[in-house]
């Protein structure tokens, strides 16, 4: 701990924020980041084909996807988490498989719940963006003799991604905030660490305000990242600067 002497000096005489509790918050930050990042990536991968299916004209494809997004967007994430967390035991024979040691811990049920939840929201965001594709672009692609798949890949999806960017940025922030629920199923994320520190020192203001400050910093980091992305990717849509 020699290299951390400055930290020890800074914290000297502080009853609550000892290097140990700071360590809890740090581990919490790592866990929150893992949960949010992994669920967002997995949710995004799921959402792209689902959004394409959702905008399909064939009802037997679009309807089941609509039901999925309706259910997952219409019920609280906490319920979804409970169903997966308490319900995973009841899949027949799962306790005998190699998956059990993984699923027994709260991390994976939480990850599955978050992934399914964010995938539902992201599907709807992308569907809106796909639907907003200018008619002329689609006609032009058809006139070029592009197949449906090629048109999706080259024309519809790239511009839909750009249009979806601001709404997706909001979804990322929403997911970060929703991840606080992980602490309910005993996970030690940032909120979990705060609850532990609160219970140990009976210091609600210090414990939760510190966690709130971490979330606030993360929120602003995400906000600025997406603003930067929008500036980069939507540069061609801005009015030309006259000179």
């Amino acid at each position, binding site marked *: 701990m020699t290299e951390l002497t400055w930290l020890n000096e800074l914290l000297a005489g502080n009853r609550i924020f000892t290097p140990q509790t700071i360590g809890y918050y740090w581990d919490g930050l790592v866990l929150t980041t893992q949960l949010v990042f992994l669920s967002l990536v997995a949710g995004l991968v799921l959402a792209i084909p689902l959004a394409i299916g959702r905008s399909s004209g064939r009802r037997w494809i679009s309807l089941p996807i609509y039901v999925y997004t309706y259910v997952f967007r219409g019920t609280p994430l906490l*319920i979804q988490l*409970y169903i997966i967390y308490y319900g995973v035991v009841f899949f027949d024979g799962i306790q005998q498989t190699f998956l059990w040691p993984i699923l027994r811990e709260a991390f994976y049920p939480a990850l599955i719940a978050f992934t399914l939840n964010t995938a539902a929201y992201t599907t709807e965001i992308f569907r809106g963006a796909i639907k907003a594709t200018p008619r002329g672009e689609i006609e032009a692609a058809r006139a070029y003799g592009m197949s449906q798949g090629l048109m999706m890949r080259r024309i519809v999806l790239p511009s839909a991604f750009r249009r979806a960017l601001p709404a997706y940025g909001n979804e990322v922030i929403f997911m970060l905030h929703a991840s606080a629920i992980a602490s309910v199923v005993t996970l030690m994320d940032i909120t979990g660490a705060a609850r532990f520190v609160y219970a140990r020192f009976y210091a*609600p203001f210090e414990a939760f305000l510190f966690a709130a400050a971490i979330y606030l910093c993360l929120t602003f980091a995400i906000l600025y990242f997406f603003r930067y992305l929008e500036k980069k990717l939507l540069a061609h849509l801005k009015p030309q600067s006259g000179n």
Partner: protein
Amino acid sequence: MIDLHGYGPRLLEGAGVTLQLAVLSLILALILGLLTASAKMSRNWLLHKVATLYTTVIRGVPDLVLMLLLFFGGQMALNVATDAIYDRFGVDWYINLNAFAAGVLTIGFIFGAYMGETFRGAFMAVEHGQIEAGKAYGMSPWLVFRRIRFPQMMRHALPGISNNWMVLLKTTALVSVIGLSDMVRVAAEASRATHEPFTFLIPVAVVYLLIASVSEWMFARLQKRYNVGFGGH
């Protein structure tokens, strides 16, 4: 019928708690939202800053953290206050912060920030000429607000309010964490006790979907009402 192992009445009571909590929080959020929007649009520098700080901080922190902070922190603040009263006046007075009140206050406080942004955008969407016309008629500022700005603002605000309400409704599930017996908490308890999670959690999810669907229908009707004269959409 599904066997609820005798948890039926408590689940029903929990559903009542959820609904009351959601509606009361919505009312508080609407009031706070209108105040925040007015503060943000006011020429008073301090009011503007305070309102901006409120909406920024609230929207940057998870609901659950705010709820835990206000619930446990609020209890501690009350304890400090009652201790001071005891020391000074010798009156032994203990106030236990009611989880329901804490829930309404927290959720209302959080969604007040979101409503504030919705209302601000909607107020700005009302054409300035309309307000000038009202003034030209000799209407007082309050009358201009009541007859001209508010009804036209609502047309723009309703989709946002409807959205916020849907999120608010789902946020009420979090009060189960601070010990309030809403339907989520009862269902979670019952799941643990009986080892039958689906029997309890899925009906509760369906109730949420039902409330959401009914409110969607109600908002569509309201929207129609406020869109009168604008070629219904």
